[in-house]
């Protein structure tokens, strides 16, 4: 915070004490950074580097034992074998993100503008599911969507289900993903909408904007930061998820997360699992980068 120095000490007070004060303050700032940097180093950088070297290892004679190497072909093999899982991951996560946005936006809008004294209670209800375990909640969906359950019976009566069921189909996986990551969509949307000054909406009405136009030209553009944050917070974990596909999907609905899990824990094929992780990370980073660039420069008028 060197810029604060001139206001903290008057110029006539003499330069040396002020300068040493700044140095002491910057040193404190660096000291305060150390725990964070240590945390990042131990729990992020070191595992990442080790994962990267694992992804290039070559097999030995003994199963489950690998030796250091620079076997780049691991990546090609992983892609060749698991590209359908990649596609499914991004398609399921994409649909779940869109569904979550469609459900969350009106809800967040209501909480921000219409809930009045119920605002705090409604926000608590949004995060309430976090008090139960993720695994348990997903498991509960097996009952909700079970073949004899009310929902499946209802849709079957209308002949709307191609496979005659919901559980163990991609529909159940997408529903599970949507449900599980919905709060991550609602909260940033709420934060963005809550910040919008209602007087801006009044001003747009005063300037001949119908309610629908006021939404398109004022509310939506001003809520975009929330939309971007919410879609990222939903899409990224959904694309890497494997619990929903395991519990709610059929073996043919497996996602990349499942492939990584089975390679690590069942096949003990650590290089393939690591390569899959790195490919997933690279694709997500690229998508996020492109998405943010587009959202940032989009012509909003």
């Amino acid at each position, binding site marked *: 915070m060197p810029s604060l120095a001139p206001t903290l000490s008057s110029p006539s007070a003499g330069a040396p004490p002020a300068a040493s004060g700044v140095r002491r303050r910057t040193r404190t700032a660096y000291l305060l950074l150390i725990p964070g940097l240590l945390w990042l180093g131990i729990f992020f950088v070191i595992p990442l580097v080790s994962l990267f070297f694992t992804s290039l290892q070559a097999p030995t004679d003994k199963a489950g034992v690998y030796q250091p190497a620079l076997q780049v072909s691991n990546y090609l093999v992983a892609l060749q074998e698991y590209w359908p899982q990649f596609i499914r991951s991004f398609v399921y996560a994409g649909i779940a993100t869109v569904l979550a946005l469609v459900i969350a936006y009106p809800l967040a809008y209501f909480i921000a503008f219409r809930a009045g004294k119920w605002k705090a209670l409604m926000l608590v209800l949004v995060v309430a599911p976090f008090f139960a375990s993720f695994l348990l909640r997903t498991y509960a969906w097996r009952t909700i969507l079970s073949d004899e359950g009310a929902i499946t019976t209802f849709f079957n009566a209308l002949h709307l289900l191609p496979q005659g069921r919901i559980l163990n189909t991609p529909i159940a996986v997408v529903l599970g993903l949507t449900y599980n990551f919905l709060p991550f969509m609602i909260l940033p949307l709420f934060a963005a909408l809550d910040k919008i000054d209602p007087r801006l909406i009044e*001003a747009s009405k*005063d*300037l001949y904007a119908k309610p629908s136009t006021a939404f398109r030209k004022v509310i939506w553009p001003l809520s975009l930061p929330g939309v971007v944050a919410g879609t990222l917070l939903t899409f990224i974990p959904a694309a890497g998820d494997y619990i929903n596909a395991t519990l709610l999907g059929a073996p043919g609905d497996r996602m990349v997360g499942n492939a990584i899990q089975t390679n690590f824990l069942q096949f003990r094929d650590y290089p393939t699992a690591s390569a899959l992780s790195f490919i997933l990370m690279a694709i997500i980073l690229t998508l996020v980068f492109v998405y943010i660039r587009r959202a940032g420069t989009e012509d909003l*008028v």
Partner: protein
Amino acid sequence: MTVAQGSEVQDLNLVDLVKSFGDFVAVDDLTLTIPAGSFFALLGPSGCGKTTTLRMVAGLEEPTSGRIMLGTQDITDEKPYKRQVNTVFQSYALFPHLDIFENVAFGLRRRGVKNVDAQVNDMLELVELGPMARRKPAQLSGGQQQRVAVARALINHPGVLLLDEPLGALDLKLRRQMQIELKRIQDEVGTTFVHVTHDQEEAMTMADTVAVMNKGRIEQMGPPVDIYDLPRTAFVANFLGQSNLAQGSVSGTSGDNLVVSSSGASFTLPSERSVRQDGDLLIGVRPEKLAIDAADADTVPDRHNRLSGKVTDASFTGVSTQYLVMTTWGDEWIIFEQNRSADLHQLGDEVVIHWAPEHTFGLEIPAGG
């Protein structure tokens, strides 16, 4: 620039307008006519219902009862986005995601105007913001934002432009400058301006007509000079400028004048300047209408009202001196005297205050005071 497209400039009529929030009556049976093309000021203390009145005219608040007429058209139930009325909001409410050009063009685009460039540039020229067209509102100073808010509303050629304390957020110097600026713009475009303010000096310097509002009602309305000269309620007498008031009762008449006795003294005033012709009343006079002389002076004209007292404070301000004089019955009167001569009255001097009867006004005694 003329009011070519858009609506004709028309009278705005508020008829028996009432707005209640629960039990609280914010606007109480307001009836007034705002003539087309006038610069109209709605003046009143904070919380008296000015903003609520404007919001009803703009369509942002639904009246509890009463009608709003623009010319011959009843707009009471018209949606805000259909009304030929635009507002300069107290907080400006500029769209933060749009640049100045698009802020100003907003209304035109919503009404489907195809080529907005020429009009927007003209308007930015009028408010002297041409070079700022591509900046965002946050990059402008308070005074510039204020002018954008005016331009954004005015470009739609509204039948009436509503301004809700538009200068309230500006510092004194900028406020004076913007008062002149707004007056110039109004002269140039000829649109009816309804200017809400709690600053009596602002209302008097800018408006053709001032309506003084108190507790949801209009107390008095007219040209500022007239209201200042002849306030009709004690509230107006003290809110618009300052007044010296004394309680008395009518003791008789002499020709066209009323004779009022008050604490042993006797005053006369033209009967048409009093709201009461008998019984108890307040008489009042403006501080600059008073003359102050030494108690033994023989220069007081016979026809003048007079009272005696003792100087308790004298502050010299250059062009004038402001005296406080304690009257014999214990009220403190305020007197502004121009410094024509060098002999000032000193603290503790016995003096006589006198004034012409035609500068006196008679008021109803307010309830509870």
